[in-house]
């Protein structure tokens, strides 16, 4: 087993691709077989990923690392590893994928094999993004995700799917092209400073970059991440993409893809360009806070359930950005755990809305009412998820929000006060939605609907269990996240204080010189 454990990340990246081969070779056996195959692969992938969870030691260094030189002349090597920041994002990915497969069981009718192949390719690329420690591979994985997602929205989406798919790809491409320029610049610096070309993350962090250069590099990377998260005002692709995407697409999009933005900030911007980042902290915190309030207000007036959830994502991810840019140990840990929380709660909301759509073929809030009567079990589950999303203590959302807000208060009190208003608004738009969908008299179209089926229970129960676990006993998670975050924050403040101290020392010396 030890060989297996040592190469677990490679296994996790390759297993879904092997699954693609399996699906292709067995497609003649029929759609049912393909679905089961996809489910099997994704469950297996999840079980394997638990090795990471069990074996990860609460330390700051990268673990489960593998490194193989690939093209030495160009300094490209295959290098992977996880730390406390990426660990749970990988687990979130492998956890959500079987659920996404289950969610597509009946709703996907055309080109079934291609659909599940897209999902598996995406899973491989997502695990790759969160584990790559070489910027070449990181960029390849980052871009590779676009292709299956483009198809998921464009082929299996609803009415305005083509517009939404193109919008999604264009927005993301604009960002990632600038990131590519940034990566190429860093690459050129490795030759100049280290004597050998390299794309390894480790080498990048050894580069010495002036604050002016860091300013531009931060911008080049940050735009890409800001679009991905999405940060206000780069969010308008999100409601369209979510509304048009099939349920599985929405779950993956909200659950994992948006987290790539937050991850990117933590993995690249904070450690590589601290001096550049420092300049943007006030701006980005402002945008995050605006996003929290703005997303909530927009969610309030959406007539479409999926759009409402999409705008609530804008609001919730504003908290994540706030926590990252407040750069205290507590706030950043809160952001990491909140990315997981948001993936669970919003993923579950999209899953549930998808179930409703399969029954009623509409997502318009106005078409519903009184569902608590006709779908009692579904309603209870939905309410639990809503409460998790609204940050009720005892469920997961509260843990993240509390850590972020309490961790951000010292550096940015005003931002915290305004953001906390977003928690009031979350209760308003969520409970108003619940009121209109589930309460009141039940109309004829909404009565006689079938309550949750066993396949649906299978998809939603694990999510609820995780929401309660993370809400009541997040310690096993926080313990693993904390050391990496501590190191990140400490290194950042060291970098900042070094440059801040230098001119002061110079000043004092020059002052003394003058005195002499």
């Amino acid at each position, binding site marked *: 087993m030890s060989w297996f454990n040592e190469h677990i990340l490679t296994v996790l990246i390759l297993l879904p691709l092997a699954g693609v081969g399996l699906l292709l070779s067995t497609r003649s056996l029929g759609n049912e077989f393909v679905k089961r195959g996809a489910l099997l692969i994704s469950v297996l992938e999840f079980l394997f990923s638990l090795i990471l969870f069990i074996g990860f030691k609460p330390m700051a260094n990268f673990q489960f690392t593998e490194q193989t030189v690939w093209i030495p002349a160009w300094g490209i090597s295959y290098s992977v590893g996880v730390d406390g920041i990426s660990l749970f994002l990988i687990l979130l990915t492998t956890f959500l994928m079987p659920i996404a497969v289950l969610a597509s069981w009946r709703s996907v009718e055309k080109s079934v094999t291609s659909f599940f192949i897209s999902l598996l390719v995406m899973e491989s690329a997502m695990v790759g993004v969160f584990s790559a420690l070489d910027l070449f591979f990181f960029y390849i994985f980052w871009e590779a995700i676009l292709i299956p997602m483009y198809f998921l929205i464009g082929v299996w989406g609803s009415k305005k799917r083509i517009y939404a798919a193109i*919008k999604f790809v*264009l*927005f993301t491409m604009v960002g990632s092209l600038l990131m590519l320029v940034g990566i190429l610049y860093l690459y050129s610096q490795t030759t100049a400073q280290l004597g050998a070309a390299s794309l390894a993350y480790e080498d990048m962090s050894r580069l010495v970059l002036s604050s002016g250069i860091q300013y531009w590099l931060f911008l080049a990377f940050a735009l890409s991440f800001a679009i991905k998260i999405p940060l206000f*005002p780069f969010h*308008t*692709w999100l409601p369209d993409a979510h509304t048009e995407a099939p349920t599985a697409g929405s779950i993956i999009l909200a659950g994992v893809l948006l987290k790539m933005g937050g991850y990117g900030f933590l993995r690249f911007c904070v450690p590589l360009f601290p001096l550049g980042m420092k300049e943007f902290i006030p701006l980005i915190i402002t945008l995050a806070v605006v996003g929290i309030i*703005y997303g909530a*207000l*927009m969610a*309030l*007036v*959406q007539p479409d359930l999926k759009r409402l959830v999409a705008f609530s994502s804008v609001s919730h991810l504003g908290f994540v950005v706030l926590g990252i840019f407040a750069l205290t*140990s*507590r706030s950043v*840990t809160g952001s990491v755990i909140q990315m997981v929380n948001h993936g669970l709660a919003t993923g579950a909301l999209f899953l549930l809305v998808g179930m409703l759509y399969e029954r009623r073929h509409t997502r318009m809030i106005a078409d519903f009412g*009184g569902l*608590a*009567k006709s779908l009692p079990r579904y309603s209870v589950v939905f309410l639990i998820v809503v*409460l998790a999303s609204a940050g*009720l*203590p*005892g469920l997961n959302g509260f*843990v993240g929000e*509390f*850590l972020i*807000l*309490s961790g951000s*208060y*010292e550096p940015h009190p005003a931002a*915290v*006060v305004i953001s*906390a*208003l977003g*928690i*009031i608004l979350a*209760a*308003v738009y969520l*409970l*108003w939605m*619940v*009121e209109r969908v*589930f*309460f*009141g*008299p*039940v109309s004829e179209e909404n009565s006689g609907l079938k309550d949750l089926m066993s396949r649906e229970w299978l998809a939603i129960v694990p999510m609820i269990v995780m929401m309660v676990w993370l809400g*009541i*006993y*997040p*310690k096993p998670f*926080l313990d693993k996240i*904390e050391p990496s975050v*501590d190191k990140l924050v400490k290194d950042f403040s060291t970098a900042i204080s070094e440059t801040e101290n230098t001119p002061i020392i110079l000043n004092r010396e020059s002052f003394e010189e003058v005195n002499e």
Partner: protein
Amino acid sequence: MENALWLIPFLPFAGFLLNGLLGKKLSESLSGLIASATIGASLVLGLLSLNAYLENHETLHQVMFTWLSLGSFDVSIAYTLDALSLVMVLVVTGVGFLIHVYSIGYMKGDPGIQRYFAYLNLFTFMMLNLVMADNLLLLFLGWEGVGLCSYLLIGFWFEDPAKAAAGKKAFVVNRIGDFGFLLGMIIILTNLGSLNFGDILLPEQLSSLETGLITTIALLLFLGAAGKSAQIPLYVWLPDAMAGPTPVSALIHAATMVTAGVYLVARMGALFALSATALSVVAVIGVLTAFFAATMAIYENDIKKVLAYSTISQLGYMFAAAGVGAYGAAIFHLMTHAFFKGLLFLGAGSVIHGLSGEQDMRRMGGLKSKMPKTYWTMLAGVSAISGLPLLSGFFSKDEILWFTYSSQSGGDFIFIVGLLTAILTSFYMFRLFFLTFHGDSRWTKGITPHDSPPVMTIPLILLAVLSVAGGWIGIPEILGGGNSFHHFLSETVHDVVGPHPTDLLLSELTVMVLSIAGALVGIYVAFRRYGTGKLDKESKGFGHLVEKKYYVDELYDAVIVHPIRRGSESIWRRFDVRVIDGIVNGLGSLTLRVSSFVRRAQTGVIQNYAAVILLGVILIIFYVYLK
């Protein structure tokens, strides 16, 4: 005993799980039995804990597991029972147990009865977490949890849109208060590095903070308290909350949950004590709410809403007491209020039950002979709340009035408004009493009023006994009593009333006489006006304004709710869709236009391409040559 503390909240939680998961598989009576038995067992454990506490007067404490820990910050799921928590636990489980039993009769035949008992058990679990928490964060968990249950139970009959809306209103208004609570907690954590009561309430810790900061924290926490305990300006949810089943109104919206704000202030008493500003705000808001709500109770015709305004008003008294530093008096009134207000709501429920759901007092009257048990127990309740001598409400309210007058942070204004409110209180309570039970019978034809079954009347009688005698543990020294309640509580909560000023005009006995006189005046006027069964005429002018609740709901709608909703709608359509997306789509179509222009060069005619290539070569040669 200490190792079994967790069972006190978790027994009702087990009841919640049984009722919630088994649901319709449980018979109606079994469902009620499970719910009542679990909370009954908690009551027994609470009494055993009291016994253990009284042996050596040491706080009981049990840590279950770490909830959140990060760096030096560490918060556990941990329970503590000191004098204050014990009082609260006994009120919650004691009154709660009676109300659970009563519910078996009241909710009989309701198709959702298992869901009802599941919510009620969950509520008790959350409430016990709130009062037993050894840190602010766990208290907050209970605080939000009881709010959730309140939301679910107000909207219990969710098919009625008005009831569902009332539930949401309660939750949202409470969230506004919680915003303050959350920020207060965050500031405490930022400055003191902990949220455990054992750390943050230490005098040396608190004195390390600046007064301005303490005032800020205290006022933020008080915002939370004002939401939960329905004080100005956040009281608007409580009258609407009467949409829930009546036992819910008794338990959650009278006896227990709404007093959580008072509990919070008392629990954080050491902090509030350090800010004279915060204390004055609490006292003034409290006494103004008491008066303001009482005026609305006078004009109300819905029997439950009269009681709702009365609850707001009585909670105002408790805050007035806490605000002048008399935490003990506030908690004493909290307890007696739980007895008599629980009783009054259950009595009202019995009336409503007997009249097949009628809540309008204009269609009641003459019920005295039809419902004797309800009549006599209600009389005990209205007398107790009016503060008639020797009843429970008399001792607690009198103590409050005395402290508002004599405490160093009290004053004439608070005292006089409090005294006026006492007159109004006995007036509207006896108005309710006379309109309901005396005079002509005005109920709808076809209804045959009847007293309730024993499962409902026995809890009534027991609460009536408590309403009468419950105050005797707090008889003041001046009447020859030992005021043992006060001494017991002072082991946890320290009053900050200072030595009485020596130049007081009125003595403690005079204040007592004044409060009795006030109560009698109120009763007399009520009797003159309603004793014979006369009804109010259509009110005009000021009366009309009060009847319409001063149009506060309409004001909030016009100033806050509608602007937010309309504003968001227009931002979405004008800014999000047009401006941001407009720029994006505009860039898109610009690209299209540019490319379609450029595309024209791609004519597909080889000669053209050749010509262009030739031109290019010539230009390059020129360039190189000129250089």
